[in-house]
């Protein structure tokens, strides 16, 4: 499979994503400069973490107007899998591919530490190899991860099982103390209504292999690969 990794000016987790896709998953990783206008030939797209455009104005606010974002929107509307990590999540929010917005962390601090997240929905292409309720230890590194949306949208996210990851204690309890940034409903990651676009603040690409002492993040990439393979198989059968 061919995973595209979008590179914005200021992205700084793009190489980590390319490394995980190529060295850990053994798949093709294609860096895609933000000026590109086509994503032809890609099976999935990753918007990596970083500080696109220096986080000027608001996180993701300027990157969403990069030429490649029209192609990302088209790719998503055709059902293509799009994963946004940290700044990638913020860009997806600003672009309207996911609902809501990010506020400054409640603590006002840049948080850089391991957190625990609970897989709330394992029936997605991003979590298919996880168990429902499974707890993953994944690092966060952000100043603006305090997810906010209006009550109507939040109710819809909850009703449609669109909240995929919630911050939790190591034993899986979703408590206010386990919430590192003040996110509404302990939200760490959500998907769109169609289910093919996922954004999350923690960095699974930073904990996807044994040598790093933590490979919990690998499950997300392996799930994507598994979903892509199954989808391709289905196409061949049809």
């Amino acid at each position: 499979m061919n995973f595209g990794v979008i590179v914005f000016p200021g992205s700084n987790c793009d190489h980590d994503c390319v490394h995980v896709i190529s060295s850990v998953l053994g798949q093709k990783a294609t860096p895609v400069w933000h000026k590109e206008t086509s994503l032809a030939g890609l099976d999935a797209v990753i918007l990596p973490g970083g500080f696109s455009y220096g986080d000027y104005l608001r996180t993701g606010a300027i990157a969403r107007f990069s030429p490649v974002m029209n192609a990302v929107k088209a790719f998503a509307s055709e059902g293509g899998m799009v994963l946004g990590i940290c700044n990638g999540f913020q860009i997806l929010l600003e672009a309207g591919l996911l609902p809501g917005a990010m506020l400054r962390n409640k603590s006002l601090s840049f948080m850089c530490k391991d957190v625990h997240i609970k897989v709330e929905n394992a029936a997605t292409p991003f979590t298919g190899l996880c168990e429902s309720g499974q707890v993953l230890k994944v690092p966060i590194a952000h100043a603006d991860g305090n997810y906010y949306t209006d009550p109507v949208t939040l109710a819809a996210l909850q009703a449609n099982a669109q909240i995929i990851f919630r911050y939790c204690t190591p034993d899986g309890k979703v408590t206010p103390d386990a919430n590192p940034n003040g996110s509404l409903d302990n939200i760490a990651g959500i998907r769109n209504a169609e289910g093919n676009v996922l954004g999350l603040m923690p960095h699974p690409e930073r904990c996807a292999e044994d040598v790093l002492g933590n490979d919990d993040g690998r499950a997300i990439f392996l799930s994507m690969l598994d979903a892509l393979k199954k989808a391709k198989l289905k196409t061949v059968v049809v």
Partner: protein
Amino acid sequence: MKAKIHITLKSGILDPQGKAIEHALETLGFKNATNVRMGKYLELELRETTKDRAEAEVKAMCEKLLANTIIEEYRYELAS
């Protein structure tokens, strides 16, 4: 024409920076300061002399880029 644009978090949305500033003010003895809200201020020159058209353009800029209307509200003043 010159536009002065103010962007703040909507009322009701927690403003952690405003809160931190409020605490700092309180510590300094400014006990009367409450509900501190932190925002952004932008100034720009418009190559447009008609007020209606300038206003429509500034509004479009705010809606499309300058403010995120999910969490922020904006107001502006226009002066020639």
